[in-house]
């Protein structure tokens, strides 16, 4: 069993700082979700929390693993998968929003008489 005091002061500071930073940005993401007032703006908050917030938390986990055991690289994979999937889920929510806005509010049209893919019939 490893107690925290075995870590050494420097790694302890680094890990704590990363945890606080990560928690702060995840908190800001949640506050944004509550506070912002239209659906598209609200989408910004959670897609952002995953990037820096979860990124910092995973860095803390990695630092801890390297300071105590022989290290762990799983976190890199978690981050890579998150970074690959977060834009896709964000994109789907945005498309759902575009369908809700259809006919209610004018989006800027694409150039040359084309329509946005979500609205096209084909």
């Amino acid at each position, binding site marked *: 069993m490893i107690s925290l005091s075995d870590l050494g002061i420097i790694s302890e500071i680094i890990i704590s700082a990363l945890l606080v930073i990560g928690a*702060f*940005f995840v908190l*800001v993401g949640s*506050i*944004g979700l509550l*506070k*912002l*007032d*239209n659906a*598209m*703006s609200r*989408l*910004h*908050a959670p*897609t*952002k929390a995953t*990037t*820096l917030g979860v*990124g910092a938390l995973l860095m803390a986990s990695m630092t801890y693993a390297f300071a105590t055991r022989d290290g*762990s*690289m*799983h976190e*890199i*994979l978690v981050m890579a998968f998150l*970074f*690959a999937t*977060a*834009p*896709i889920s*964000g*994109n789907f929510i*945005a*498309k759902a*929003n*575009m369908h809700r806005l259809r006919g209610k509010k004018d*989006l*800027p*049209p*694409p*150039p*040359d008489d*084309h*329509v*946005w*893919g*979500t609205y*096209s019939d*084909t």
Partner: protein
Amino acid sequence: MRARLLPHPLLTVLLAIVWCLLVNEIKLGTVVFGLILGLLIPIITAAYWPDRPPVGRPIKLLSYLLIVLWDILVANVAVAMIVLFKSNKNMRPNWVVVPLDLCTPEAITMLAGTITLTPGTVSADLSDDGKALLVHALDAEDPDAVRDEIKQRYERRLKEIFE
């Protein structure tokens, strides 16, 4: 011959790395098994990758990833400030149309992903001819400035990498 045995060399390397990370140790056995997987999976799935874009400059791709990571860091702080200290009244959410110079689907996917990951902007849709991207900006007084920054900072670099 080379194309049949190694249809996707980058995917081979990527799969080997992912396998080592999954097993969470770097030993000869894991690396060899990762390489076996990396050789077999691209051959089996080759039919699903009809036209692969050649990544001409992997080093440029790396520097692009570093730039994006740095931007995520900087812009996250900016968005946190907006969320915490700016009232909804003063916020200017805006739609931005970004005309695209990129043609390959992979490059456009990278650009759309980058736009969503960098805080303040979310890519929402592509026009039906694939020549323009619809982006939503959280707080943009001037949509043209956002468009120019995306084109300058990300699209120009992606064009160098993929096209």
